[in-house]
């Protein structure tokens, strides 16, 4: 059975920035957009900016925008909207009161569940991961978890998207659609699932995420894909991954300004083109490793970025999709636990609407089913913490306290039986006595491995209707034919008639 169980915000509040700090970052950001400018290497983007009256340097493809124009454009962005799912019972409401976690993306290798060996990722991995994530209520929606490197570059993102839809009834947000052609095909696929273009606007079963090119730039193909999404009413977000001391200033505030300039300039652009279209803020800033220059995915700076960014998104009254769980660890180990627990907790405690992403290791490069399940356990702890501590007559338990009195115990108190199931229970934390551990072996990682195998052997999500599956595959193949590429089998082409994708 497929289910989603997000974290409800309310019990805990964390603040990384006070109102004055947010105002200063906002002001600095507008100053940067107006004086330094942001690069928009897309004809459609430059033309939109020109039409709006911004200063466009065509040769450099750099746009400088008056602050009032940015502020006015951002005001038309809707603060709340849904992310729909194939199964309407799994629709998500970006209402500012929930944290919805998703799988991570986009990895390039998979740690094999049976052998533990690393191998390049392919379309079968995308399908299997989507099915496994479908079985976990901690996962509310999907990102494309790994790259389908065994499918043609021209249609790869569409194969990946179809593999997710074919193996899960939950919402899919793509991070791998980076051209207008792919975006148009993906929207056509989404409309086929939703029941037409208009129905898709009401219940977008697809959302898109585009990466910025830090510092202060965008990718042309990504911008063009975003325009297609915005035009169709598909929620679209822009993610900054500005890295302190490399693609952003070494100071956290400076990197927040650079990333904020990238994101809000793009969101404003979408609003100028299609006022009122659903957009969101996305971010996964980091601080580089000072010796190698590499992305780290951990450390106090990353966690603070996670805490600060939702405050910026709230300031602009748009949802946030926040990168967390981005551990640089090479295996599901101590480092992965520390980094993913802290990053997910801080980003959740500030109320990030969407939280990425479970399952990847080595700075979002290596997929691990074990890590997915262990990350889900971390999220379940965070979800428990966000509930906070309700204080009322029943929870104060005065009757039970009087009944037990001094020196008794609460094991058999009726109050205990009423409330004990509210207590968090682990699936993978090792709470066994030492002697049992020594006698039996095993432990969190082994249990996660076994659980993944069990779920993959048993979990069967509701499949696509064969006619719909055929229609979606046809859209993918049309893109391939148009590009002069031999059509590659999609997951629904290669699946058995019953649709078992194992």
């Amino acid at each position: 059975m497929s289910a989603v169980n997000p974290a409800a915000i309310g019990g805990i509040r964390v603040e990384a920035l006070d109102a004055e700090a947010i105002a200063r970052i906002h002001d600095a950001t507008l100053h940067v957009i107006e004086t330094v400018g942001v690069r928009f290497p897309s004809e459609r983007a430059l033309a939109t900016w020109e039409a709006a009256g911004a200063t466009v340097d065509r040769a450099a493809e750099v746009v400088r925008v008056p602050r009032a124009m940015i502020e006015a454009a951002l005001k038309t962005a809707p603060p709340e909207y849904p992310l729909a799912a194939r199964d309407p019972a799994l629709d998500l409401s970006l209402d500012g009161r929930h944290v919805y976690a998703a799988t991570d993306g986009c990895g390039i290798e998979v740690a094999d569940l049976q052998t533990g060996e690393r191998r390049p990722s392919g379309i079968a991995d995308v399908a299997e991961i989507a099915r496994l994530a479908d079985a976990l209520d901690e996962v509310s929606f999907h990102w494309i978890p790994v790259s389908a490197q065994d499918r043609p570059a021209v249609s790869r993102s569409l194969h990946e998207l179809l593999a997710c839809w074919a193996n899960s009834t939950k919402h899919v947000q793509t991070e791998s659609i980076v051209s207008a052609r792919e975006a148009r095909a993906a929207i056509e696929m989404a409309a086929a699932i939703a029941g037409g273009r208009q129905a898709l606007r009401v219940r977008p079963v697809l959302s898109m995420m585009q990466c910025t090119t830090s510092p202060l730039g965008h990718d042309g193909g990504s911008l063009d894909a975003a325009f297609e999404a915005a035009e169709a009413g598909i929620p679209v977000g822009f993610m900054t991954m500005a890295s302190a001391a490399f693609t952003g200033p070494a100071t956290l505030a400076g990197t927040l300004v650079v990333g904020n300039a990238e994101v809000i300039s793009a969101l404003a652009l979408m609003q100028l083109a299609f006022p009122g279209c659903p957009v969101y803020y996305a971010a996964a800033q980091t601080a580089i490793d000072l010796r190698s220059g590499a992305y780290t995915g951990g450390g106090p700076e990353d966690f603070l970025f996670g805490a600060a960014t939702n405050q910026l998104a709230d300031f602009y009254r748009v949802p946030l999709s926040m990168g967390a769980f981005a551990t640089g660890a090479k295996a599901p180990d101590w480092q992965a636990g520390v980094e993913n627990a802290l990053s997910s907790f801080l980003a959740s405690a500030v109320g990030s609407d969407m939280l990425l992403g479970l399952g990847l290791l080595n700075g979002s490069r290596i997929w691990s089913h074990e890590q997915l399940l262990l990350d889900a356990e971390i999220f379940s702890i965070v979800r428990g913490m966000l509930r906070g501590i309700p204080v009322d007559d029943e929870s104060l338990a005065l009757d039970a306290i009087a009944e037990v009195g001094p020196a008794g115990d609460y094991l058999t108190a009726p109050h205990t039986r009423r409330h004990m199931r509210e207590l968090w229970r682990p699936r993978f934390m090792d709470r066994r006595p030492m002697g049992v551990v020594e006698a039996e072996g095993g432990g969190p990682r082994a249990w996660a491995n076994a659980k993944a195998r069990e779920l993959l052997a048993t979990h069967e999500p509701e499949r696509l209707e064969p006619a719909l599956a055929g229609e979606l595959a046809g859209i993918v193949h049309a893109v391939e034919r148009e590009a002069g590429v031999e059509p590659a089998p999609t997951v629904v082409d290669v699946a058995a008639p019953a649709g078992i994708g194992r």
Partner: protein
Amino acid sequence: MTETEFQAMRQAVVDGDADAAEAAARASIAAGIPPLVAIDEGFMPGMKEVGAGFAAGDLFLPDMMLAARAMQRALAVLEPELKAASVERTVAGRVVIGTVAGDIHEIGKNLVGMLLSTSGFEVHDLGVNVAPERFVEAAREHRADIVGLSALLTTTMTGQRAVIAALTEAGMRPPVKVMVGGAPVTGAWAEEIGADGYSEDAMGAVELAKRLVGGGATGAGAEGPAR
């Protein structure tokens, strides 16, 4: 007198002060110091000092990059003098680098190029979105020992295979070695496409390049760890 000038050259590199490095290079010419001597006894000791600081963990990548930039500014002044005097500087190897066709990401490639050039390599950076034929032409023109190929996307890294094919087609492999890099690139990929090596980061790429050219201008490859 010369000692003071060598000291200024060394310090400019250690400080990562490109303006001071350029000024020191000009001063050395005015003082009649042979450019090769200025490089070897003035600027290179600065690079070595920064390299030692990095190895010891006291200095970081930004320090290395600033030193490299200062060194490059000095070389830009001194190299025309070398050429005019028909003196050829011994280089560790000649490298042609670029980001493959369809890919516009350059930060990682630039980092590798900068560190290679200050590790004694002659680097020819072809930029981004570079067609396979362009790599072949440049490798021939500059008598490259190594061609370095960068790609940041799984959809573009197949371009690395295309360049290797083009170099093979042109009859240049061997002797031209190919090193590959970029976020989606793995050792398995490098092996699959027949590259001679790959590195996960820029410092590793310098070590790899040194190994590929055998630790000197030419010669048999010296085995050793990538980092």
